[in-house]
């Protein structure tokens, strides 16, 4: 399992990288590859994959470093960790990151951006048993996802300005965008997004906490991927957004501050990974600073430094992981002299750290030179521009200092004392990824033009959108200002270490800026938000059902009222149908039943059920009267089943005692509440009545019904248009509906499996106890005789009705396509036949004779319906296309034969199964032995 997970993850990364390499020749020629998957073409929302030089470079970093991290992680993760889960999170993250860099659409960028936030949350919180990991993951998620929302708003604005979300259109509209009045809001929102993700000041605080993640995660997220996502978006949108004063001051300012704060803080870290985390922040600052300058040459330097930082930082994280793994601690104060125990790792780490410090012959040196050259360049004589070279040099001194400290503290000096375990060299395969990365650092550092040169050029061209100005990738440019500054930084940084090394070990927090606790601000803000939300919930929320329903009904009434308030109420011109006195009389009864049910539902449940059924019967008769035989049939059948169901439920409800308030002693609040409810109810009813009447008096516009009526026989071979709509024209809806029905039945079934009746309902009902008592008292009778004898004649009739009802159900099913009937009505009829057996003979005796397996009925019904649908696909028709033919059978005559009929059989089976399952499951509750229930009651108590 462990091995397979690693192989899958590594294989995917490697295969992706190979594909990417295969595509390079086209990218190298300056082509932009696009692949579009239509989704909502009308809205301009499609899945667009777009590969150009910049996304190629990022995708390559994501995949190549991803592969190396997989190899490393395979050896790093301990046997107790659920490794398959790690690799699945890892792959999810890699996929999100790839989606981000390959997006050809602004909204898609924001979408994948949020996906990277989500999957990095899972990765950072991978050791979820660890509180620090959980809170770090939460913090990273909140900060970066909130930034992601800002980014989404920003790109929405950008798309609005450009008139399209397509990246190519947006990139071509740079001048229009920068001149637009919405440019500044869009810029600010996008920058907040990018700064949160790339840990720029003042949003940098989440990154050091994220070090609670397993080291492979840190190596991946904080070198090549997650934190580079913000950088990527800045680069991607560079031709559109860069070049204005606002861009220059905000981006350069944030980059410079981050560079300085990150480098300064890194010096004072005692945790290896903490040092690397702050160093990452400062290097991200360098890249942001370069992008902020806004000159094409600075952008080239930014891209170059991105690639360089990814390589040396990934290898340093991995080396830190090895030290942690082997020595059992990452505390710089406890580490010492590891060079003797792990010479190879030590050498690799030294080279990588030298690259980080910007030592010549390594890749970090080259991009650092470019940074210094750009910092020295005069762009606009503002204070920021004048400060740049000094601050940059200062930060470089710091970075030399912490790099030297990292190496000297852990690998040099006397042998370590009191480590948790004796360190030794890591397995070769675990070192291999570091070796590859360090070789890359060296190769790029010594032969830049031959190694990274062409890729950088291609990426730069596609970033800038034009041919970049001439630049030279070489180690030696003669003695110039950048070189002098570099040498100064190296010398002062090293000297500073020599002078301050001891004192640094005694420090616990970075001086000067140690008071700037981003985390504290974040947590205060978070708890303020939570408190405010709780307060709002207390004011506006309730867990009580009645107020919720009241609000819903009132809102619905208001929503229904608004159009009439605006346009007035009037009736249409239709005379309507002649009023039949019979119709009025049955509705008088119906209204009486409804009101009576409302009146009696509290104390006289049985009466109320009967009254509700009366109202149902009236609506049923109305359907017959008003040309809807199918509805009347189905309503009548469903009515029957519902009544049985409610009667079954009555058994488990508590006895309702008369009013808890003696007459005249009712609190005023109760009367007031009832008055309000009565008012709401009358208002709702009045509204519905007026609304319905206004519609009914208007002439019917031409609707799609004309099509159904005209095509029903000629196109679908059925004369009962309602049934044809259900099983043919709109069969897909019906398929969905029967699925819902099946799910509800299963939900009821599983709810009832855990059903525990209330204690007072467990004993036999009063009537049954009285019957048993009378049996007991009289001579010659056994207990239970009265129960067995009651309703004997109806019971025999009911039992004998089984075949009759079954035949009737089948008849309804078969004739449904042409005459009132169909799968629904037939299914409910069939379930009535079944439940009658239960009522007549009792659950136990039925089940000894009849084995109903409702779940199988449900399954086969759904399968048949779905099969009929897919068969159409197999015959190259759209899903659920039906076929029909009339057959001339001897004796019987002309018989319609349609696949819609098969579909209806599926509906029938499912309805039988679902209805029977519901009824039987509830009926079954009374056969549970009291012992069972008692035991359950005790367990609960």
């Amino acid at each position: 399992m462990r091995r397979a997970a690693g192989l899958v993850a590594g294989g995917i990364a490697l295969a992706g990288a190979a594909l990417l390499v295969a595509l390079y020749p086209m990218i190298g020629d300056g082509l932009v590859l696009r692949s579009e998957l239509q989704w909502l073409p009308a809205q301009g929302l499609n899945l667009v994959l777009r590969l150009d030089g910049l996304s190629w470079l990022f995708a390559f970093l994501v995949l190549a470093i991803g592969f190396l991290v997989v190899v490393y992680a395979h050896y790093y993760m301990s046997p107790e960790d659920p490794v398959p889960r790690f690799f699945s999170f890892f792959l999810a993250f890699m996929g999100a990151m790839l989606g981000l860099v390959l997006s050809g659409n602004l909204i898609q960028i924001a979408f994948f951006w949020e996906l990277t936030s989500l999957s990095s949350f899972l990765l950072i919180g991978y050791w979820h048993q660890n509180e620090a990991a959980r809170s770090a993951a939460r913090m990273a998620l909140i900060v970066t996802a909130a930034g992601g929302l800002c980014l989404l708003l920003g790109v929405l604005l950008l798309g609005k300005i450009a008139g399209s979300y397509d990246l190519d259109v947006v990139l071509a509209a740079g001048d229009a965008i920068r001149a637009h009045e919405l440019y500044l809001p869009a810029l600010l929102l996008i920058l907040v997004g990018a700064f949160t993700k790339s840990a720029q000041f003042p949003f940098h605080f989440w990154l050091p906490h994220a070090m609670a993640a397993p080291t492979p995660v840190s190596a991946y997220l904080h070198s090549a991927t997650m934190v580079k996502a913000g950088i990527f978006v800045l680069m991607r949108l560079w031709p559109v957004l860069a070049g204005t004063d606002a861009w220059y001051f905000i981006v350069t300012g944030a980059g410079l501050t981050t560079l300085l704060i990150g480098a300064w803080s890194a010096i004072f870290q005692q945790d290896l990974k903490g040092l690397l985390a702050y160093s990452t922040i400062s290097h991200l600052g360098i890249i942001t600073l370069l992008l902020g300058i806004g000159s094409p040459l600075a952008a080239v330097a930014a891209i170059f430094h991105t690639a360089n930082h990814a390589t040396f930082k990934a290898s340093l994280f991995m080396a830190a992981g090895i030290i942690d793994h082997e020595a059992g601690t990452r505390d710089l104060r406890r580490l010492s002299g590891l060079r003797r125990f792990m010479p190879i790792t030590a050498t690799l780490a030294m080279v990588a750290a030298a690259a980080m410090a910007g030592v010549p012959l390594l890749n970090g040196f080259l991009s650092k030179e470019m940074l210094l050259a750009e910092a020295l360049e005069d762009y606009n004589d503002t204070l920021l521009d004048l400060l740049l070279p000094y601050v940059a040099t200062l930060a470089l001194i710091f970075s030399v200092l912490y790099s030297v400290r990292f190496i000297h503290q852990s690998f040099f000096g006397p042998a370590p004392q009191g480590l948790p375990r004796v360190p030794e060299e890591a397995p070769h395969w675990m070192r291999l990824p570091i070796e590859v990365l360090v070789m890359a650092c060296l190769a790029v550092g010594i032969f830049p033009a031959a190694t990274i040169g062409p890729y950088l050029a291609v990426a730069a061209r596609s970033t800038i959108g034009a041919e970049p100005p001439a630049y030279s990738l070489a180690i030696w440019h003669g003695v110039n200002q950048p070189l002098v500054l570099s040498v100064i930084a190296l010398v002062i940084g090293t000297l500073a270490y020599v002078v301050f090394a001891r004192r640094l070990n005694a420090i616990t927090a970075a001086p000067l800026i140690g008071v700037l606790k981003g985390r504290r601000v974040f947590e205060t803000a978070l708890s303020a938000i939570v408190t405010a939300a709780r307060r709002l919930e207390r004011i506006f929320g309730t867990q009580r059902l009645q107020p919720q329903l009241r609000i819903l009904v009132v809102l619905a009434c208001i929503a229904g009222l608004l159009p009439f308030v605006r346009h007035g109420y009037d009736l249409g011109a239709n005379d309507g149908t002649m009023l039949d006195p019979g119709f009025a009389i049955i509705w008088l009864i119906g209204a009486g039943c409804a009101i009576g049910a409302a009146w009696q539902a509290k104390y006289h449940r049985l009466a109320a059920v009967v009254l509700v059924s009366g109202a149902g019967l009236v609506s049923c008769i109305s359907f017959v009267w008003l040309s809807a035989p199918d509805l009347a049939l189905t309503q009548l059948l469903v009515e029957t089943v519902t009544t049985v169901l409610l009667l079954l439920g009555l058994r488990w409800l508590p006895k309702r005692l008369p009013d808890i308030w003696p007459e005249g002693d009712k609190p005023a609040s109760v009367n007031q509440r009832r008055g309000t409810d009565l008012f709401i109810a009358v208002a709702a009813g009045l509204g519905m009545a007026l609304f319905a009447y206004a519609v009914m008096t208007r002439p019917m516009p031409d609707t799609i019904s004309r099509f159904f009526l005209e095509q029903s026989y000629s196109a679908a071979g059925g004369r009962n248009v309602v049934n044809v709509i259900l099983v043919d024209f709109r069969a897909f809806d019906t398929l969905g509906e029967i699925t819902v029905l099946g799910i509800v039945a299963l939900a009821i079934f599983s709810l009832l499996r855990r059903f525990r009746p209330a204690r007072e309902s467990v004993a036999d009902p009063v009537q049954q106890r009285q019957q048993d008592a009378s049996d007991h008292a009289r001579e010659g009778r056994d207990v239970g005789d009265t129960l067995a004898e009651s309703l004997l004649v109806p019971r025999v009739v009911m039992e004998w009705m089984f075949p009759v009802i079954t035949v009737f159900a089948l008849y309804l099913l078969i004739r449904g396509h042409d005459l009132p009937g169909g799968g629904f009505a037939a299914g409910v009829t069939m379930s009535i036949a079944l439940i009658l057996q239960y009522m007549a003979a009792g659950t136990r005796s039925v089940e000894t004779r009849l084995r109903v397996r409702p779940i199988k009925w449900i399954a086969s019904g759904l399968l048949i319906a779905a099969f009929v649908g897919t068969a159409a696909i197999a015959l190259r028709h759209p899903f659920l296309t039906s076929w029909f033919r009339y057959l001339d059978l001897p004796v019987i005559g002309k018989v319609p034969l349609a696949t819609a009929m098969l579909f209806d059989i599926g509906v029938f089976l499912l309805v039988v199964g679902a209805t029977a399952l519901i009824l039987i499951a509830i009926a079954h509750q009374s056969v549970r032995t009291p012992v069972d229930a008692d035991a359950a009651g005790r367990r609960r108590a």
Partner: protein
Amino acid sequence: MEIVLAIGIGVLTSSGVWLILRPRTFQVILGLSLLSYAVNLFIYAMGRLKVDAPPIVGTGGVDPALYDDPLPQALVLTAIVISFAMTALLLVVLLASRGITGTDHVDGDDGE
């Protein structure tokens, strides 16, 4: 006919709304049943009323004016079945809630 049906729909709605605002679960179930009658009739009425014109067509040409609107009927037919499922589910939920909390109050808590 229209005015009677409209009043009928109104009375069913009023009774249903009154009941769903009550505190006992059984009242709420009956209320939902009444409301679903009202809503089904309402949807049906959107196709206007016709007497003796069921949408069962002949085998020849079809004049849509002679038949009742089949579309609301199809909608209501499925609504009837679904409202049965809803009633059943609600009944079971309230039985379970009664078993767990010992009361049939909609909030599972009898305290006024």
